[in-house]
């Protein structure tokens, strides 16, 4: 009796599996270059993933509209990483083994990236990410990773220098428990000390709380003359509201991804008035940032959107250079378009044109020059500072 049932189940499962597999194979026969997008659409990263996804797709759409690369189009395959390493690894395996994507971009949480990266390098799949944990690029990834997010060291040194340039010397740091929390505080402290100041207080809070009043009181105890908010968007907005309510008018600094336009839109303008944000950036004369913003119909874009734009553009240009859609081709050729003495290009379209004219190129991205060192980290970059005025981000300067 039970045996029949079991056999039935197995048959059903096999039939379902076959039915499911068919359309995938049909795609694989096509000419398109597949690009795996693995980004958080649900869970804690759900606020940032969709924005990055949109930016990536905008670039691929633009390239496809212009005829692709030698007639080959780019086809994105999107999977939700659920902001969970276990689910993300399963999704990555599907992208790699079933869709046969040579490249995966878009992971956000450091834990997700660290979990997915071994799967990628073992199967020779190239990876691009925004995750900030310093430990990621130190993994034995054999070159299958580039990261457009500067290390927390590079960022905090730049941020601290900016803060020092405003004459404020007593930083109060309040931030979320995350891989970058400790190293950010240390580098802020080291840099501001060189200018004669110090980090006077450092409070790490837990994510997902509906108020951080007491944490703010704690950080204020040491009388800082400016605040460094080291969180993600959902918690930073709570901190900003609580700061406003408490009437604390100190200069506030945070990462640009912590105050995306959606945060500004969802709150009364006075909450975020005067907040200065920093994000990695290219040279002053680079048009990449403006092009990326225009493509998305925005005035200012945050660091995540800028980086997502750069992944997609780099993928297109690297493929155009190597004409080979494999992970190792991306690994071996990405630096041939991202850096070097070639002619500077600021978008995928511009780069494609230059390549077709037989020129060497050097892509300068919306998030910076995109020059990678041997472990896949941003070698050096400039920083773009903006300030919120009346619910809008206003450009301050590039350093």
């Amino acid at each position, binding site marked *: 009796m039970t045996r029949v049932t079991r056999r039935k189940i197995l048959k059903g499962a096999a039939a379902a599996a076959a039915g499911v597999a068919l359309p995938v194979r049909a795609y694989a026969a096509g000419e398109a270059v597949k690009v795996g997008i693995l980004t958080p*659409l*649900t*869970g*804690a990263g*759900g*606020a940032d*993933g*969709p924005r990055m996804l949109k930016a990536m797709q905008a670039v691929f759409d633009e390239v496809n509209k212009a005829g692709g690369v030698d007639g080959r189009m780019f086809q994105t395959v999107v999977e939700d990483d659920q902001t969970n390493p276990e689910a993300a690894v399963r999704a990555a395996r599907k992208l790699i083994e079933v869709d046969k994507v040579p490249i995966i971009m878009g992971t956000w949480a450091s834990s997700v990236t660290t979990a997915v990266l071994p799967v990628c390098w073992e199967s020779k799949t190239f990876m691009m990410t925004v995750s900030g944990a310093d430990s990621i690029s130190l993994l034995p990834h054999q070159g299958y990773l580039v990261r457009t997010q500067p290390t927390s060291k590079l960022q905090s040194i730049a941020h601290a220098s900016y803060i020092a340039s405003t004459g404020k010397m007593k930083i109060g740091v309040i931030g979320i*428990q995350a891989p970058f929390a400790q190293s950010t505080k240390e580098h802020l402290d080291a840099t501001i000390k060189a200018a004669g100041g110090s980090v006077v207080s450092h*409070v*790490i*809070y*837990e994510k*997902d*709380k*509906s*108020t*951080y*009043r*007491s*944490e703010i*009181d*704690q950080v204020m105890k040491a009388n800082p003359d400016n605040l460094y908010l080291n969180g993600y*968007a*959902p918690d930073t*907005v*709570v901190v900003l*509201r609580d700061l*406003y*309510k*408490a*009437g604390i008018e100190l200069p506030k600094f945070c990462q640009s991804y912590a105050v995306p336009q*959606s*945060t500004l*839109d*969802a*709150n*009364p303008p*006075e*909450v975020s008035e005067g907040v200065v944000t920093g994000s990695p950036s290219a040279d002053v004369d680079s048009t990449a940032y403006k092009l990326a913003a225009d493509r998305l119909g925005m005035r200012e874009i945050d660091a995540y959107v800028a980086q997502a734009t750069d992944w997609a553009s780099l993928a297109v240009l690297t493929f155009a250079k190597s004409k080979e859609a494999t992970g190792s081709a991306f690994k071996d050729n990405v630096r041939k378009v991202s850096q070097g003495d070639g002619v500077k290009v600021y978008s995928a379209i511009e780069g494609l044109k230059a390549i077709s004219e037989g020129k060497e190129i050097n892509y300068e991205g919306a998030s910076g020059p995109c020059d990678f060192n041997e472990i896949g980290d941003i070698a050096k970059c400039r920083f773009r500072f903006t300030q919120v005025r009346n619910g809008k981000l206003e450009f301050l300067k590039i350093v």
Partner: protein
Amino acid sequence: MEILQLIVNGIMSGTILAVPAIGLTVIFAVLRFTNFALASHMTIGAYAGLIANATFGLPVIPSLIVAFVGAGLVGWLSDEFVLKPLRASGFITTAIGSIALTIGLENIVRFIFGNQMRGYDLPIRRDWRFSGLHISPQQVESLVIAIVVMGLLFVFLSMTRTGKAMRAVADNPMLAAIKGINADRIAGIVSFVGMGLAGVGGMLIGLDTTIDPLVGFKTVLSIFAAAVVGGFGSIPGAVVGALVIGIGEELSLLVLSPAYRTAVGFIAILLVLTLRPRGLLGARAY
């Protein structure tokens, strides 16, 4: 003075926890299962209030009523069609079912509204300051609203026929059935009221922050802790439990890093249940 400020902050956050905690405990008292779908109903309430406030421009109080009715209706429907049929299979199955329900509902909200943060269309006010303390008028308002809601609930339970019937079912379902109280109708009303309160709680939290589809999920652990510490099934217990958790989480900052806040709720549960296995105000519903 710092301790006083922490206690004030704790009372404020505790009172907001109390509203959904009461919802949870009322459902438990009558229906005898832990309804994990509380989280998504808080979210639904927050979004129902958002539509009322941001789209239709209603002020806070009418928006809260919309939040109550919206979450209550969904609560009643989901109980009628999803959870009620499961209750015959025991409380564990029903509780697991309610976890699945909450994931389903959260994602329906995400499907409709997306992940973006949204805020109520309300001015944000500065804290009142006196003798070294600072208190947010928003939170005081929420405190008053929470107290009024609790008062209304008390009147409903002790004065109206339906309320009395609910208490009768909670005390002794068998006797209530013999007395001719329609248990199905009571279950529907309890689900409506309980989840409605969750919705109000969700919106009260949203008023203080911004909302996204995870707004309920983020606070639900503290709410469970509050209900358990106070004595599951006891309404005054839920209020006391919420205050204990609220104040406890704040006072813990004196000795622990703020990153350990969630753990405080758990430690409170363990302490209380070890000393008083039925919670602080020992629920009668056993």
